[in-house]
């Protein structure tokens, strides 16, 4: 997997099963050491990222907002329990509603995670250690991603449990909710975190945050009929394709022609396109950090 990200690692045959040699520093690490390093950085990054009070305050405020807006039975127009396809649709709609704001928070919060290593001078120390740049990037990515997915997962499940407890939906709702989280929540977060780690290295953090906030609305929720946008293409990261294909939810205004049906293939393609963009962002980041290390 590490080699797939274009890493300058050479796997050498020796007494041990594998040796990974970092070409930039010349240090040789066994596979066990590399794996240990990877999980060490992931754990450390996750712990650092998750312990920011500002992050929990922001997610707490959003949770209050959703608690009032999403759970309110008046929004569904009825206090009756949902059944059949309605349950599946409700699960998809709930995760899409969360996806409107949660990935935005995740993107802004992730934006300084690698940049701060450069700003604080930690990257110079890191370059002097036998740490593989590729391990560093992947571990940082995984650590940050897990840290922003944790509140999203908790909020999704808590909101689901409240809806079940209040009798709005049957317990099977939780299964659909988990499926929606996997197909809509994770791809959206994985996409924004990859770009939020990479982009602030080549532009000022504030510039990235303005661009990212604008992009999230423009590229995912703004209708191309109103303003030129990529929201109706496979680059949409908000989970609209999965919502339509897997959960059967379509939005159209009264009087508007019903939208064409999204197929499962299109939804899977959407996820594949996002995965390709993530790989490209991480690959570019890897190349950039290598270039920086050579210049140092």
């Amino acid at each position: 997997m590490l080699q797939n990200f274009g890493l300058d690692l050479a796997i050498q045959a020796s007494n041990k099963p594998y040796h990974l040699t970092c070409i930039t520093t010349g240090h040789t690490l066994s596979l066990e050491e590399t794996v240990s390093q990877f999980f060490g950085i992931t754990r450390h990054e996750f712990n650092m990222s998750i312990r920011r009070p500002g992050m929990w305050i922001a997610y707490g405020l959003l949770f209050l907002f959703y608690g009032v807006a999403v759970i309110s039975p008046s929004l569904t127009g009825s206090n009756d329990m949902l059944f059949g396809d309605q349950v599946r649709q409700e699960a998809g709609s709930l995760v899409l509603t969360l996806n409107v704001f949660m990935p935005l928070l995740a993107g802004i919060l992730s934006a300084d995670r690698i940049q701060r290593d450069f700003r604080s001078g930690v990257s110079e120390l890191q370059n002097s250690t036998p740490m593989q740049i590729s391990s560093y990037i992947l571990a940082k990515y995984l650590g940050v991603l897990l840290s922003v997915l944790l509140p999203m997962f908790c909020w999704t499940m808590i909101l689901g449990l409240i809806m079940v407890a209040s009798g709005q939906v049957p317990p099977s709702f939780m299964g659909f909710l988990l499926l929606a989280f996997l197909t809509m929540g994770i791809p959206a977060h994985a996409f924004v975190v990859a770009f939020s780690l990479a982009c602030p290295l080549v532009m000022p953090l504030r510039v990235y945050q303005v661009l990212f906030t604008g992009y999230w609305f423009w590229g995912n929720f703004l209708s191309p009929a109103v303003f030129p946008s990529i929201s109706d293409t496979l680059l949409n990261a908000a989970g609209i394709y999965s919502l339509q294909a897997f959960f059967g939810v379509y939005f159209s205004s009264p009087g508007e022609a019903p939208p064409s049906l999204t197929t499962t293939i299109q939804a899977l393609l959407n996820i594949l396109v996002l995965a390709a963009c993530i790989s490209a962002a991480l690959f570019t980041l890897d190349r950039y950090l290598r270039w920086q290390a050579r210049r140092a």
Partner: protein
Amino acid sequence: MKRFSLRYSLLTYRLDQLWFPLAFWMLFVIIGVIRGPEYILDTTRAYLGTVVPLIGGIMAAYAVLDDPALELRFATPISAAQTLFERIGLLFLIQTVSALSFQAFAFLMNADFSMFGSWGGVQLTWLVPTLSLMAIGTLGSLSAAQTMAGALLTGLVWIVELIARGWFAGQKVGQYFLVFMGSLMPDHPALRANQLTLVLLSLAFFFLGWRLLHRQERFI
């Protein structure tokens, strides 16, 4: 450097605060030209009402605290008000130039601003949201002693209000806090009360930010 020095301010100015709004200005000019005079009013409303305030708000979150010489600055007898005025004032000036020059461009493209009423009404469409988001960004970063918090707060308010604007406009209390009402709903009956509320709130936020800036030990 007790007095305000424009030369010093310009020398120590972060250039991205200048080129970034300019880049967005040019992007919207290109979009305006491509879409043509038919859509110039929509393009202008989008730029003045949403883009200028977002740039101003997030830039304001970084304006005071994102300074490598902040501790040195605190060691000089520069007052908190002067610091705030220098950093936020220049930023605001850039947004003002951007907004006015874009209006001139839109005017050349035959945009009809009559839906906003007078010339003053047009200015309020960008002035009120820009001031509001700049105040939120400044207060957010100063209260948390972290630039990221101000940027986060600004971004969150921007997208929540933009997406839920219909909900805000329909609420008895929420209608007074919708920062985009001037540009997106110029015929709303509560528009003037909304603008007055937001301006007063912005002034209160700047005042709180100024008070926080007195406690320099929080930022060291």
